[in-house]
């Protein structure tokens, strides 16, 4: 049985007061908070068995290596990878996508080729492909989204893939709309034409059970820090056959087989893509975060967040002059809105004074904002430790913000 109060006790930061009010943390799409167990596991590594991995034969090095590789196995199991060597540790989602754009893209994308993205991508799943297009002479194409509810217009897909399409890379869940995209069908359609698909899982993996074998995605990128893990650790999952045929991303120690002055051979997967000393403590922390999430159960997390989101949406829609961006039937706990004429930065500042943390801005999705013809939104985003009571506090203070700022200019 999921008990939110028991869960909250695991997060030391949730005891904090902000400007004399209890913290109401609703910026989870930006980063999640960390349970005590994650903080302790990283501290334990530094206190008891800190050493560099893979090379030393001493006890500390063996322990550190075992913990790091165990974290990789935990990640692999968590997303149901075929094998742990398909899990590459990187810094974050952004680095994972850059890795694929660089190492796969430069090898397999040429002049006149096309890469298909969507109009709702975070800049991290846009700019790496712009750089690739600039280098290779490839063209980017975009699946449009509906302005009315923030869903992808998948019906356009047939017109947008052709014999020149080399790769499709789309977000599994929008960081602005909360839309959960129908990626399973998209991947099937793409695979009928032998087009590989990369998923940006930054928002989906922390909130939904993820099975890469069932999804059949060819690449999946996600960040540790949005799923109770530390910053500076992220994951690129790739099917072995793709990772094998790719060139390394960065050169250095660990990623090599044999080195001569003029040439070198590459290490086996996954080490080929992990040049230099990695974020050992970060990987261990992420492994602990996964243990923690699995103990609660990803199904329980999804179910609870769905209830929370449905409740928040229904309450917010009762407020006059409220515009909500993203009303897809399948959506996660990310709500972007504009209330009256209150600029999102004023709204976020007002809510902060009441202890409520939300995000204001373009959420690294400027093309999306331009299409909606708005400069910014305020965004409230939930995780499993948020409560219905916190939603009530948000709603109450949204109404107070209207009183404070009036209806603006």
């Amino acid at each position, binding site marked *: 049985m999921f008990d939110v109060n028991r869960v909250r006790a695991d997060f030391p930061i949730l005891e904090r007061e902000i400007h004399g009010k209890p913290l109401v943390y609703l910026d989870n799409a930006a980063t999640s908070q960390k349970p005590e167990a994650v903080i302790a596991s990283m501290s334990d590594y530094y206190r008891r068995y800190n050493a560099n991995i893979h090379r030393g034969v001493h006890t500390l090095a063996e322990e550190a290596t075992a913990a790091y590789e165990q974290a990789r196995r935990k990640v692999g199991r968590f997303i149901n990878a075929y094998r742990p060597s398909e899990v590459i540790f990187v810094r974050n989602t952004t680095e994972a996508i850059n890795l694929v754009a660089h190492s796969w893209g430069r090898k397999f994308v040429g002049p006149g080729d096309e890469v298909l993205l969507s109009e709702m991508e975070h800049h991290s799943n846009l700019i790496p492909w712009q750089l690739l297009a600039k280098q290779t002479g490839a063209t980017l194409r975009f699946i449009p989204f509906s302005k009315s509810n923030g869903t992808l217009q998948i019906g356009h897909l047939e017109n947008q893939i052709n014999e020149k399409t080399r790769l499709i890379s789309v977000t599994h869940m929008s960081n602005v709309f909360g839309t959960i995209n129908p990626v399973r069908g998209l991947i099937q359609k793409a695979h009928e034409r032998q087009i590989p698909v990369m998923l940006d899982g930054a928002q989906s993996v922390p909130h939904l059970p993820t099975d890469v074998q069932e999804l059949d995605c060819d690449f999946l990128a996600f960040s540790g820090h949005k799923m109770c893990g530390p910053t500076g650790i992220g994951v690129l999952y790739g099917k072995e056959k793709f990772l094998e045929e790719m060139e390394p991303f960065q050169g250095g120690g660990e990623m090599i087989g044999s080195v001569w002055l003029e040439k070198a051979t590459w290490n086996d997967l996954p080490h080929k893509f992990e040049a230099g000393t990695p974020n050992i403590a970060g990987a261990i922390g992420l492994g602990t975060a996964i243990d923690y999430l699995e103990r609660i159960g990803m199904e329980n997390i999804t179910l609870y967040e769905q209830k929370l989101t449905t409740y928040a949406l229904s309450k917010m829609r009762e407020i006059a002059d409220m515009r909500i961006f993203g009303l897809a039937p399948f959506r996660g706990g990310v709500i972007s809105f504009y209330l009256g004429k209150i*600029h999102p*930065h*004023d709204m976020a500042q007002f809510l902060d*004074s009441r202890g409520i943390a939300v995000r204001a801005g373009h959420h690294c999705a400027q093309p999306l*904002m331009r299409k909606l013809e*708005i*400069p910014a939104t305020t965004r409230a985003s939930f995780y499993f430790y948020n409560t219905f009571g916190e939603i009530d506090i948000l709603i109450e203070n949204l109404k107070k913000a209207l009183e404070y700022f009036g209806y*603006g200019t």
Partner: protein
Amino acid sequence: MELDELYQDIILDHYKNPHNFGEGEASCTNIELDNPVCGDHIKLMLVIDENDIIQDVKFTGSGCAISMASASMMTDEIQGKKVQDVREIIEDVLGAMRGEKQVDSLDEHGDLVALKGVIKFPVRVKCATLAWHAVKDGITKCEQEKNK
């Protein structure tokens, strides 16, 4: 950190009823500036006469209460003044916002005193300075056009 220090009544008044807001004829190039961080946008129309006096200024745009109020106060402040004096005021405001100048320098400039509260909210300083960067650019461009 009290919210009312940031959103002082003067700021909220200017935000709700901005002065010199609307399209106007400019004597030289219009200036448009954006704050990419928050999407604030300002367009400034300056009329500077042959004696280097700012005869008129209008602005349009969209943004948060701080940026719009600051723009409104800026237009009030520079109206009818010599370009040379306006430059000093601009430096007073930008310097105070950057923490390089005494904030008390704002005391002599009427409503601008309300901007003192912004300094305690470093993230919002960019909002307050947008209009001042715009007018600085505007004056420079007008002078360049005049000297052509």
